[in-house]
């Protein structure tokens, strides 16, 4: 199950598994967050438990909606996955 929480610091925390199985839900959550037009958003990935290319692609599309969105605290294991598919520099 994937969840999106916003905290007081204006950060969006992605919690759960960002994989193909949750892709549809993750997109809806991200779209919902987008519609609230947040001013300064940072994405906090500390609570992310799994990530595949489908999930990474969604986060990337979300990032593209902003001029400067910082993506923070990506767990090392998931960073490895991003590294493998050449998305580290594009997403983090």
């Amino acid at each position, binding site marked *: 199950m994937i969840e999106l929480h916003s905290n007081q610091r204006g950060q969006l925390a992605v919690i759960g598994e960002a994989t193909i199985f949750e892709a549809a839900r*993750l997109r809806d959550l991200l779209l919902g967050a987008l519609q609230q037009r947040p001013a300064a958003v940072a994405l906090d990935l500390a609570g992310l438990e799994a990530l595949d290319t489908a999930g990474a692609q969604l986060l990337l599309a979300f990032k593209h909606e902003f001029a400067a969105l910082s993506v923070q605290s990506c767990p090392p294991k998931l960073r490895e996955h991003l590294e493998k598919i050449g998305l580290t520099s594009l997403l983090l």
Partner: protein
Amino acid sequence: MDPNVLRDIFLTESDELISDLEHGLVTLESTPGDTDAIHRIFRAAHTLKSNAGMVGMDSLVRFAHVAENVLSRVRSNEIPIELPLVNVLFRSVDVLKGLLAAAAATAELDKIVLDGAAEQTLKALTPYLSPSTGAATNRQHEGTRGLKLLQIDLSFAPDIFATGQDPAFLITDLEELGQVLSVRANTKHLPSLASMNPEECYLDWRILLRTEEPRASVENVFLFVMDRSKLRIEDVTATHCHLDDLAESPLGELLVDEGLVSKADVAKALDQQKAQQKRIGQVLVEMNATDATAVDRALRKQQVARQIRRSTSIRVDTEKLDRLVNLVGELAVSIAQANQLSRQPNATQAVRIQAVETLEQIGRDLQSQVMSVRMVAIAETFSRFKRLTRDLAQELGKHVFLETLGDETELDKNVSEQLADPLKHMVRNAVAHGLESPADRIQAGKSDTGRILLRAQQCQGYVVIEISDDGRGIDPDRVLAKALERGLIGERDHLTERQIYDLLFLPGFSTAQEVNEISGRGVGLDVVRKNVADLHGSIEVESALGKGTTFRIKLPLTLAIIEGMNVRVGPDTMTIPLSSVIELLSSNNTQVNTFEGKGELVDVRGEYLPMVRLSGIFESASCDASTADPVIVVVESGNRRFGVMVDRVLGLEQTVVKPLRQAFSVVSSLDHNYRKLEAVSGATILGDGNIALILDIAGVERMAFGALQ
């Protein structure tokens, strides 16, 4: 005949054939070139297929047919025997065994079908049948000794995720075939979040793989996504080896490639060159086939390629790399901490400063570790001289023992490489001119075996290399007489012993045509000094008549970073290498006098040193009016001490040396100011983004005072 009897015969024979196949493959795996084994395997597969046809076992016929065709290409050397292929062939044997087991259990051989595993194995065999893995690939393979760079462009079917595949899995598989050098994702087709289907793949990839495996093995990785994905594999080994080619290309070829001369002209020039013993570039210019600038440009290109190529590989102790990795780890932690601090509004100033200082410390450690990666032991250079000494000694009828000390001393790889030639020259000089013949040595009461000592040691930021011999030494009186005779000094010049020995390094002190025992020591020493100066080093000589001579070379540890003193001259900032600086004098408290014909002299505690104003050399807007108290920096070049007047000293800084052309994008104006560049060895980018020229003190000296006068 009873169909069951026929089937039994078929099964019995098949067991033998399978066993032949397996033995043959085992042999092939250990000896890929064993043609007997290849023929045996092929025959077995072929017989198995024919027999299966006779009993109507179509599935086996279909499978064996593909395997046989692959083996046929192996037999005719169209595809190389490599591990992945042998593996697929072993898997094929397993499939055949499975089919035969099924045949043993049923009377209806024609009903047996290929299962999933069999189909997969068939798919794995198929690429070996495609002409692209044929002879051409094979030849290319041999040409590059197997190792090649493949550029893989991947564009997946949109529903790849839905099939349970992830590009990351495929990249993992690629990693098993070789070294994945880079993975670049292309997001060009990624739509906006609102319009994207979250279950579709919109990304494309370009992967650079270094592998020894045949292209077919790479294709196999994508076997299950190949149908609906676009896969392009290109061998880019040649493109990436371009530098190698360029460095080795003869000049003529380079010019032809550039479209500057025709092949016919080069051929003609080559003929002329043989007759005239000239350089090809010169001949081409004389033939009016091209102009000197084009030749120069091509030569430069060739040189750059050689330099780049030379610096592309270095052997690094894994321990050094481990330390580097640890530091990078620390860096990541510190950055995270700093990041966190930056978002804590109530963090105190002191805590923030502490975080920056930690980062700074790690930065410094990283710098020194990275520099250490560039360091190589001088043993590599020293070891070349053992053979040289032995051969030369034998040729000259001398007995020489070469000893080395401090072999483990490390210095920058570039420095080490550029030092090899001057060192060789000096070792040769020592054997040829420094050491006496065995008879002379015995007469002088020495052992008949001369001793040459190469010693390296690190002190502070320098490496000091000594080349000593216990030979006849250099007679200062004879050096002086020679210099007088050559007009290098005047009758009334009073030189200290050190200055006398320095004369040995002057161009024209001695020429190869008239080598004698003493002046012989000077042969080529001007070139040696120039080489050493190019490395920002200095060289001096000490000698005791009858006892021996020591040349001492002092070099900075690295060329890439120097300790520099930043000074202000007019509007410009310049950097003086700290290794040349002796002391600083305030011009207010120092006597500067102008002497007829000698220029300005500065009185340093009773010793008069010549002085030069940098603003004069660089034609900077003079500053004396605006600066109340200019500073005189006393510097030492290889030849002498002198004063350099600057407006202000800004401070000391570790300076990263960049070649001029890299620091400036506008090259033409630099070329125009070439004369001034003689005094400049490079440039550096200051903290505020401005560029500072790094002074070459020997060059400043040459410009200000000429070679000697």
